[in-house]
């Protein structure tokens, strides 16, 4: 079946669907390859979906997209062994006509997105694993070999939307495979509860939802984060840590998840739930410095495959959608000028990405991964424990004079990190945040 398309998109996740939809909508012939039984059957995310970036692709998505709850409240928890210190933000302003953030279930959302891609005119081939890229004698990518019989397909350009663990691009030498300290391994369970129970436990009504994100003792000194996202009739409960940290610690991911679920701050939220799925996925954590070359002759790379993930703000799917859309728009411009899909021409994509929030945000936090990864014990174990002790001392009324309490608290911080450590950490954090 040697067929020729304007464009071949490898993968049907957020970035692949965004690219395929944008290309097909502009009239290009698009073949999209997906190895799962349906788009979404291989995809895992928390998941929070950011409306603004989807609106730029499908403005009226709210009419039929499978959305769970719009988020009106965010809880950040700093966790010690038996306590958490929280910062919550809740606002009725998030109850707007076009809410900003939604929880979604990726398998269902991706199925919907894929239907939109097909309606836009793309040919979506599921149950098809892409095996390798095909190059011509000049080193330009000209197609993909799949595991179908006579499964070679040709295209003017290949969009590599193959995810964090994409094999094609790295095996062709277009980028390095991810390194153990540039990816986090997250595990997640889906806990089902009646909608009324979720609403009562999280103090919400209707389609309102809450996000809890937690750091501290739960990751046992590793760089990591736990999360609880409220969906309509289930909670996504998970935890992720850097792969290199996991390897050093000897902790099992599922053991960490069980301990997180058993934490006294978490357990009552999950009481009586029925677990219907357990999943795992890698998350790109390398930030700006880990972003590879984004295009070459006959190819572009988008989404997680290009490490486009903002670990500090826990944003990934929006960077994926935006990179897919911007790459597609660049391809469309080149096509409409009847120019070739060379690296120079395709460089419109990385250039436009640099001017967008995607690279601006990643550049802002370019020093953050290294800081958090090398100081994980301090940031994820020492400080949360100190803050918890300080809070307990502040709140417990036991006849100890307040000045004495303050002195004890300050001494505990100084003993743990020393003045130079404390100021050094604050300075480094401020500089990396800037």
């Amino acid at each position, binding site marked *: 079946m040697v067929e020729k398309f304007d464009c071949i998109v490898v993968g049907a996740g957020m970035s692949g669907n965004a690219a395929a939809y944008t290309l097909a909508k502009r009239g290009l012939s698009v073949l999209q390859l997906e190895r799962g039984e349906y788009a979404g059957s291989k995809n895992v995310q928390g998941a929070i979906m950011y409306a603004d970036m989807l609106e730029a692709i499908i403005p009226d998505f709210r009419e039929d997209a499978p959305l769970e709850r719009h988020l009106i409240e965010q809880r950040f928890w700093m966790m010690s062994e038996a306590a958490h210190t929280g910062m919550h933000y809740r606002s009725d302003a998030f109850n707007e006509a076009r809410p900003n953030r939604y929880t979604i279930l990726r398998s269902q959302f991706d199925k919907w997105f894929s239907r939109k891609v097909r309606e836009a005119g793309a040919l979506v081939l599921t149950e098809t694993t892409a095996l390798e890229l095909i190059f011509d004698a000049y080193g330009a990518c000209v197609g993909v070999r799949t595991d179908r019989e006579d499964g070679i397909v040709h295209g003017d350009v290949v969009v590599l939307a193959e995810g964090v663990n994409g094999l094609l691009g790295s095996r062709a030498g277009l980028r390095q495979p991810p390194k153990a300290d540039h990816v986090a391994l997250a595990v997640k369970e889906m806990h089902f509860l009646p909608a009324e129970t979720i609403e009562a436990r999280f103090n919400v009504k209707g389609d309102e939802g809450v996000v809890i994100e937690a750091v501290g003792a739960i990751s046992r000194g590793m760089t990591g984060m736990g999360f609880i996202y409220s969906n309509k009739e289930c909670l996504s409960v998970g935890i992720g840590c850097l792969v290199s940290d996991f390897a050093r610690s000897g902790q099992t991911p599922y053991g960490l998840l069980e301990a997180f679920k*058993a934490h006294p701050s978490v357990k009552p939220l999950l009481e009586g739930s029925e677990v219907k799925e357990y999943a795992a996925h890698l998350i790109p954590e390398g930030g700006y410095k880990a972003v590879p070359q984004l295009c070459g002759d006959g190819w572009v790379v988008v989404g997680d495959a290009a490490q486009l993930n903002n670990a500090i703000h826990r944003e990934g799917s929006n960077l994926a959608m935006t990179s897919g859309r911007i790459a597609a728009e660049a391809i469309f411009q080149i096509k409409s000028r009847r120019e070739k899909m060379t690296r120079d021409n395709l460089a419109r994509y990385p250039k436009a990405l640099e001017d967008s929030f995607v690279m601006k945000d990643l550049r802002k936090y370019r020093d953050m991964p290294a800081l958090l990864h090398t100081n994980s014990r301090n940031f994820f174990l020492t400080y949360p424990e100190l803050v918890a002790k300080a809070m307990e001392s502040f709140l417990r009324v036991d006849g100890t004079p307040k000045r004495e309490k303050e002195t004890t608290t300050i001494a505990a911080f100084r003993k743990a990190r020393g003045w130079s450590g404390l100021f050094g950490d604050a300075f480094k954090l401020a500089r990396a945040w800037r």
Partner: protein
Amino acid sequence: MSKPEEVRVEEKLYQNRYVVDGGRSHIRVVSRGKPSANLMAMTTLCPAGCYTLTEAGQVEVAPDGCFECGTCRVMCEPSGEVEWNYPRGGYGVLFKFG
């Protein structure tokens, strides 16, 4: 934080759906004598518990419960101890919720 009893990952995997490609393993351990630290780490690190240590001190993989996450590829492909490919189209894990 109470320390939970030994967590059995097999029980978690029962909730999932898989289409197993009988006889075709998409991940292979290439035996090269003593397993490296990275390969040994997979016995705790693999989120689906696919890696086990045999009595002979070798690390084996049985990827029936695999999520295709790629952690073992990241850890062990560079040394050549693990050969990693995706399952054939339509096979492997099938997420209902993702």
